[in-house]
C-alpha cells in the first residue's frame, strides 16, 4: 500500500466541504438521537432487571444490575426460539414463493402488449395497501362465515366451514397467503425492472445468432438478472423477517402461539409481561445476529465479485 497523498483542494472545494458538513447536520443529529444514544441506553438497560413498573427511573437500572443474566435467559427461552423458528419458516416459504410468482409475472409483462399499463398498475396495488388494512381484508376473507369458505362451498357443492384462523396450521397458511398476496407485486416490480433492464441489443444479437426464445431467456436474460434477483431476495427477506402488521391483525399471533413471529413475541413481552430489560437484551441479540449476517453477506459478495473480476 502506498501512502495516500492528501489531495490539494481549491477554495471552492473547501467551501463545498464546509457547506456539506452543515447540510448533513440534521440527518446526523437525527441518527445520533435515534441510533447512537438509544443503542447505549438499550445496552445499559439490558444488563439489569429493570422494568417500567419498578417505580424507579431507567437510569437507576444499575440498582438491579444483573450483567448478562438476560442474555443467558435468551438461550433457555423456548418461546423465543419457537417464535424465531416460526419467523424463519415464514421467510423460507413466503420469499421463494413470492420470487417465483414475481418472476412469472415479470415474464408475462416483459413485452409490450395492449393494456399493459393498466394491468401493471393494478398488479402493483396490493403492495400499496396499508399492511394493517391488508391484514384486516384477509381477516374478513378467512372468517369461517367468510367469502373464502363460501366460494369453496359453492365450488364443492357441500358446505365448507373451515375455521381458518383458529386452526394452528391453517392460520399459518392463511398468514402466508396474505403476505404473498401483498408482497408478490414488489418482487414482480423489481424483477420486471431487471428484465426490462437487459439491453435490447443483446437480446437482438442473441436472436440473430440463432437463439430461440428459450435460449435467450436461459443464457442471456437470467444470467444478466443475477444482481437484481439478489437485491430482490435480500430486501424481501429482511422485510419479511420483521413481519408484524398483517399477521398481528389477522391472528394476533394465535391461535395459541401458532403464528407468533419474533415481532409479536417482543410486543407481548413489552406490553403484557413488561419485561423491558429482557426485551432490550433480545433486541440487541437480534441486532448483533442480523449485523453479523449482513457483514458476512457483504464479505461474501465482495469476494465473489473479486473472484469474478480475476
Amino acid at each position: 500500500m502506498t501512502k495516500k497523498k492528501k489531495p490539494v483542494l481549491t477554495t471552492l472545494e473547501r467551501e463545498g466541504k464546509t457547506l456539506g458538513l452543515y447540510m448533513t447536520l440534521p440527518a446526523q443529529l437525527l441518527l445520533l438521537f435515534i441510533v447512537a444514544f438509544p443503542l447505549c441506553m438499550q445496552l445499559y438497560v439490558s444488563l439489569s432487571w429493570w422494568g417500567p413498573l419498578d417505580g424507579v427511573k431507567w437510569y437507576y437500572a444499575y440498582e438491579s444490575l444483573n450483567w448478562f443474566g438476560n442474555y443467558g435467559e435468551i438461550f433457555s427461552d423456548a418461546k423465543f426460539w419457537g417464535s424465531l423458528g416460526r419467523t424463519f419458516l415464514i421467510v423460507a416459504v413466503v420469499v421463494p414463493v413470492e420470487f417465483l410468482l414475481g418472476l412469472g409475472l415479470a415474464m408475462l409483462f416483459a413485452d409490450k402488449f395492449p393494456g399493459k399499463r393498466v394491468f401493471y398498475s393494478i398488479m402493483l396495488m396490493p403492495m400499496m395497501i396499508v399492511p394493517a388494512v391488508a391484514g384486516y381484508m384477509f381477516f374478513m376473507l378467512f372468517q369461517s362465515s367468510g367469502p373464502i369458505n363460501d366460494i369453496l362451498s359453492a365450488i364443492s357443492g357441500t358446505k365448507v366451514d373451515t375455521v381458518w384462523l383458529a386452526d394452528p396450521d391453517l392460520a399459518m397458511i392463511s398468514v402466508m397467503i396474505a403476505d404473498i398476496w401483498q408482497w408478490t407485486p414488489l418482487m414482480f416490480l423489481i424483477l420486471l425492472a431487471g428484465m426490462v433492464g437487459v439491453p435490447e441489443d443483446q437480446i437482438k444479437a442473441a436472436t440473430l445468432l440463432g437463439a430461440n426464445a428459450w435460449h435467450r431467456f436461459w443464457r442471456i436474460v437470467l444470467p444478466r438478472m443475477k444482481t437484481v434477483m439478489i437485491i430482490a431476495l435480500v430486501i424481501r427477506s429482511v422485510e419479511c423477517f420483521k413481519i408484524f402488521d398483517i399477521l398481528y391483525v389477522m391472528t394476533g399471533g394465535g391461535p395459541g402461539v401458532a403464528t407468533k413471529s419474533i415481532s409479536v413475541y417482543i410486543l407481548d413481552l413489552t406490553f403484557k409481561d413488561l419485561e423491558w430489560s429482557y426485551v432490550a437484551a433480545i433486541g440487541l441479540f437480534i441486532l448483533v445476529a442480523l449485523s453479523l449476517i449482513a457483514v458476512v453477506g457483504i464479505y461474501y459478495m465482495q469476494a465473489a465479485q473479486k473472484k469474478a473480476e480475476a
Partner: protein
Amino acid sequence: MASIELINLTKKFGDLTAVNDLNLVIPDKEFVALLGPSGCGKTTTMNMIAGIEMPSEGSILFGGEDMRTIPANKRDVGFVFQNYAIFTHMTVRKNLEFGLKVRGVEKSEIKRRVQNMADLMRLNDRLDWRTSKLSVNELQKVAIGRSAVTEPEIFLLDEPLSNLDAAFRAFMRTELKHLQHEFQQTMVYVTHDQIEAMSLADRIAVLDMGLLQQYGTPNEVYNKPHNTFVANFMGSPSMNLLPCRLTNGGGDHALDFGDAGTSMIEDGELMRRCKLARNADVVFGMRPEDIDIQPREVGRPGIDMEVSFVEPIGPRTVVHLSAGSHSIKVAKDKQYPIELGAKVKAEFPKGRCHIFDAESGNAIGLE
C-alpha cells in the same frame, strides 16, 4: 446464392414513415452501403432484412426466397451492432461460442471453429478474458468474430466503426474490405459517414427521409449526384451549391448570382443542360476540389470573390471565398499560400459543373 431483394419495402411507426417504398437489389457477394443522415431509415431497413423488424408493406427476398415467415433466429445472417452488443456476462470464448452452441453444433467442431476465428481476429490471448477488460478495438473484433464464426452468407453491419479511434478506424476499413473480398459474403453496411461508404462499398444506396435518393457505385454517386441532397451529402468539404438564375444576356446564357455577379456559360455540356431547365431558378453545384482560384484579370467564367477564411487541414487546404451573400469552399492539395482578404476570381472549369432544379432539387439533364 445470397442476393437480397427489397421490393416495395415500407415501414411505418404510427404516423411516421421510416422507410418509404424502397426497391433495392443487392447482388450476391457484393458490398453495399446504406448511407444517410440519422433518421433516414437505413437502420430500420437493415433491421427488416435481419428480421428484427417486420415490414408494414412489401417483401424481402434472400436468393429469390421470400423471408416473410422466417423468424430472425432462422435467417442465418451475421449482424454487427453499432455498440457491439457483446454479452458482457460471458468471456470472449463464450461470446464466440454462442451462435454455434444454440445451433447445437458438436463440441469439438465448436472448439475448432472458435480457435480458427480467434486466430484470424488475433484474439488468441484474450479468449478467456472477461469482456469488460477489453479495449473498444478488441470488442469490435469480438463482435465481428462472433457473427462470422457461424459462417453466414449475408453479413449486416450497423455503423461498426463509429466508436473506434481514427487510426484504428482507417485500419479496420481496409481490413473489412479485404475480408469481404476474401470470404465473398454479401455485405450490407449501414453508415452515416460518407467517407466510410465511399471507401468500402461496391455500391452505395443513399437514403433520406425513408426514400432512396440514389443507388450506384461510389464514383457514380460522387460524380453524378441525382439531386442536391446527394450532392451535398457526398464529399468533404461538401459540394458548393449556389442558388442562381439562368439569364439570356446578349444571346449567351449566363448564371446570375445576384449580389455576387454573373458568370457566362462557355461550357457546352453545361449549356446543354441549362437549356433543359424548366424554369430559370436553378442551383449551380461545384465540388470544392474542382474550382480554380485565379487572379481577377483572367477573363474566364467565374465570379469575383474574396478570401474570408483559410483552413490548413494537413494534406489539403480549404479556402473559403465569399462575395455578396454567397460563399464557397475551395479545396487545394497540400499547403496553399493565400492571404486572408485577397481579391480573387473563383473559376469554374469546363465539364465539372452540376446544375439542379431549384424547386425539386433534381439534377437537370443528367445522362
